[in-house]
């Protein structure tokens, strides 16, 4: 997919693969390795599934999600994810205890953690009643490691 590119779809699980295909296609076009594309897909799934589950849960209508892929300075690939759901700052979420053993280990709480681990930078802004999450993936210019 040529970028800058934007797609908007209903905020529901049915849209997941369309969103992922869109972003992967933009990322591949930039020459990212299969490994990096897979990491981008994972971070994206985690964010989207959270929006499907939580962002619009007090609404009676199907919300929407808008995703933009574009380039930024310093050889960065940027994914912007915008929703109109309840205000939620991903950066405020506490890290899970990943050393607890099976009995004590909490179920869940890994999605946000994966996003922060896998992306080079994550920014959040509440803007005009919308959540705007920005994922930054660096090192566009570095040769991909798989092709």
């Amino acid at each position, binding site marked *: 997919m040529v970028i800058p590119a934007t797609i908007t779809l209903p905020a529901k699980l049915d849209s*997941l693969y369309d969103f992922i295909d869109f972003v992967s296609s933009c990322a591949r076009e930039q020459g990212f390795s299969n490994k990096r594309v*897979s990491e981008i*897909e*994972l971070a994206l*799934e985690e964010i989207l599934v959270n929006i499907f589950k939580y962002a619009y849960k007090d609404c009676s209508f199907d919300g929407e999600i808008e995703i933009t892929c574009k380039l930024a300075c310093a050889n960065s690939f940027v994914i912007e994810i915008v929703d109109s759901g309840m205000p939620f700052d991903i950066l405020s979420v506490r890290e899970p205890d*990943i050393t607890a053993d099976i009995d004590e*280990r909490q*179920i869940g709480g*890994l999605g946000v953690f*994966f996003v922060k681990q896998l992306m080079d930078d994550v920014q959040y802004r509440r803007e005009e009643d919308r959540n705007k999450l920005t994922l930054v993936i660096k090192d566009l210019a570095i040769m991909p490691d798989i092709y």
Partner: protein
Amino acid sequence: MEIQTGKEKNTVVVSIKGKIDAVTAPELEKELSNLIAQGENFFLFNFSELEYISSAGLRSLLAAAKQVKPKGGNIVFSGLKGPVGDVFKISGFGTIFKIFETQEDALK
């Protein structure tokens, strides 16, 4: 996602192909609940053909582990590759669960 199950002595070998994500995890969770309800307590997940797992998949696996543990059961894994191995590493699942290179190693 394609799930295949077979039994080796007291262990259910669950081989999963493709992706365990938010769309497919509910199916896995159902399959595992059924097996546990039938009295199965030992599981080996062969992930040598698994390409992708997200937190939705880990959630289903941990839920199963929490069910079999009090009954003296256990869940182990083999054949993690690429992205799946990375997810196990980042999440700590690689240390809280026992991971084998191959299915044969695990069943020894």
